[in-house]
């Protein structure tokens, strides 16, 4: 059995985090659930293996999504992990800043089905594979 690819989910709403993680599992992915950005940075630093993608919310309780993104991109080993931002606000400046920092996609929460978002993420995973191959 091949090892499942892992996707890190950073979302401070417990219910949403629960739904996303469950769906990732059902989609043959291994979710790494984080309810805050600090926790996510800790995981990245301590986990034996880096996640294949990150699902990031913008509005988070302490450190927000943008600061997390800056920290992520500042670290060369983490910088290559594809990030998909899923937020309840997609104002011009937020989208602009995130994409400028290298986010792969900025999606508006409630507009997309879980299936669709996970398909999008999977798209970036396979992209990774092909680029390596």
């Amino acid at each position, binding site marked *: 059995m091949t090892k499942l690819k892992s996707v890190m989910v950073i979302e401070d709403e417990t219910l949403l985090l629960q739904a996303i993680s469950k769906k990732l599992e059902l989609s043959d992915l291994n979710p790494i659930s984080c309810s805050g950005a600090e926790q996510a940075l800790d995981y990245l630093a301590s986990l034996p293996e880096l996640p294949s993608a990150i699902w990031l919310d913008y509005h988070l309780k302490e450190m927000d999504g943008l600061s997390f993104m800056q920290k992520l991109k500042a670290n060369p080993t983490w910088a290559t992990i594809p990030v998909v931002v899923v937020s309840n606000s*997609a104002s011009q400046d937020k989208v602009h800043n995130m994409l400028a920092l290298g986010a792969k996609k900025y999606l508006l929460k409630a507009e997309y089905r879980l299936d669709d978002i996970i398909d999008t993420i999977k798209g970036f995973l396979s992209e990774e594979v092909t680029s390596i191959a």
Partner: protein
Amino acid sequence: MKINRSIIFTFTVLFALFISIIGAYVNFESRKALINDADNLVKVTSEIKTQHVESYLESQKELVVMLGAASIFRDYLKESTSTVNYPVLKQKVVDRFERTLSGDKNINEVFIMKPNALVAVSSDPKHEGVDKSNDFFFTKGKLGPYLKDIYFSEVSKQRSWGLAAPIADEKTGELYGVVALRLNTDSLYKILQIKSSIGETGEEFLVNKNRTFITPSRFLGDSVILSKSINTENVTECFNKKDNSSAADHLDYRNVATIGAHSYIPEMEWCLITKFDKSEVYKPVYKVNAVFAISTIVGILLFILTGSLISNSITKPIEELQKGVEIIQKGNLEYKVGTNLKNEIGQLSRQFDVMTQSIKQSRTEIDKKVEEQTKEIVEKSTDLQKQQTAILNILDDAEKEKTRSEQLAADLQKFKLAVDSTEEHVVITDSNGIILYANSAVTKITGFEHSEIMGKKAGSRELWGGLMETTVYENFWQTIKTHKQSFTGEFKNKRKDGENYIAEANVTPILSDSGEVLFFVGIERNVTKAKEVDRMKTEFISLASHQLRTPLSAMKWFSEMLLNGDAGPLSTEQKEYVNNIYISNERMVALVNSLLNISRIESGRIIIDPEPTDLRLLVDDVIKELKNKIDEKHQTAILSTHPDLSKVNIDPKLIREVYKNLLTNAIKYTPDKGDITIFISKNEDQVISQVSDTGYGIPAKDKDRVFQKFYRGENVVKMETDGTGLGLYLVKSIVDSSKGKIWFESSENKGTTFWFTLPLKGVEAKEGEVRLNS
């Protein structure tokens, strides 16, 4: 009648009269001469033709007499049939017959008869033995030479005539038989048909004693022969008198007036009629008449022409003189009648001019005197009037001035009161911005006392200004002072106590007639609170909406998972309920999106980012996006565009929203199989989009509320529960912000058409903070 015309008329009448008399005389004489000639011609022709016929008859008679005397016939007739010699003699007779026949083609048959009237030998052997005892050939022929009148031969089936003569002993006169010839009429007719000199209508024909034609008629042809009887005057006379006549007028068998003559031919008891139409006789006269008539007309025309030329030369000077007199009568004494003619008329005209001059001179003198006296009187009267008017004016002016001053004072007081007590900050400055007037609201808004303000520069650092970049103030002064235009904008100002506030300002230069700035009038309003309230309202909606998205996402995702069977299979009923939750949640998502869009537009923070856009592609794309919904209802959507529709500079994201909303409505509120048409046209300065459907329509009583927030048609709310009532409000907001117009027409249960315009030159870009759907 004018002189020249009466001269021409008289001469023309005389000339015409003269010519007519000559014409009549010539006509009469030439007719007489022609008739004379014609009579002679007819008579001579008649005589010649008669001789011709008679000599022909005579020659034929001689022939038959000669045959009668031929010994061969006698010898044959005397010989008994039983002798050996008989056949030889008969052969000789036959030979003789053949010679006779070959000598004259007109002879059809020659035969001899015995005294018992039986035909003995004939050139036509069939006739031998025929009994001729009742035939004139025999009965008259045995008495002496006989000419048989023209008859229709039953034997040869053609017209014939004949001759017979006795065969007798020379001395004793004993009759041995009779010889006869039967001839056709060709030779005889030929004689009559030989063209004589009696013209186009002339003819000659023979009439027998039965008064019947025996030769053809020129006008009626061959059919008359032996069939048509003729009883004209000259035929009757001919048979009565049995003579040769001279020419005379009579009516012929056609009842046409002719000139004719007759001759009696006693041998055959025939009459030869020679005649021709009188009209032909007169033909030359008609020709002469025609030439004469043309010459007369030409003559009269020449007469009129030369006459008018001559008379003009005489009457023209007289006319000019008359015209001159008329002009002078009307009062133009400057007019000169004088002509250069050397004759009496010329002298008369020159005399007339001399007379006119002397009248003119005396009149001028009288006029001059009258004018001088009148002028004196008028001058005196005018002086008097002027004095009177001046006095009246002074009184009037004084009165008016007083009233006007009072009125002005009252008006000014009203204005001052109004301006003083208004809530707006009102300042009037000179052209350098030095404050000349400030109302009480200035003190209230800025905190500076009236005395602190007067004489200072408006909006300076010393007073309420100076908080903003210097370029802002520079631009402001440039607008109002250099460009002399009115300025509207916001300033960040500070009160005397240091508190900042935002002022919405309008400053207008007041110009003199020559265009110089006299004053500036500045009106400002403190909008700090209003702006704050506005901002809070927008922020609230925005925040609330964003916050709503989190629970909406949770509901969406969990119900999605339930429906997917991620938490185990659901019963049909469970599935239905969860699906209801899912759909309701989607509506809430849509509602939140609409509310957000509206709050963005209302707050004016929306970004307008125009780019050249192909509207056809844009609408096509929207239709593609909505294709599932269209197909689901089996509807047809047709897009057509103006052939020369170029790209328009608009914000495609915003305008897409307009089309999407209008089309979504059209699909939603049109029953299955309905039609939706989109037509994009343009005129000189606008692009006009039209979206029509064949749907339920909008009730007439709701028409004014269509673009209001949360409005949904009463007739459709029951049918389509889904809908926020915000779509058209959003559409109108976008169209308005794009400097366009939107309107519609609708008829219940027939359909609705929406139109909206966009400026052809495009929409100006606008900086802002937000976009739709974010």
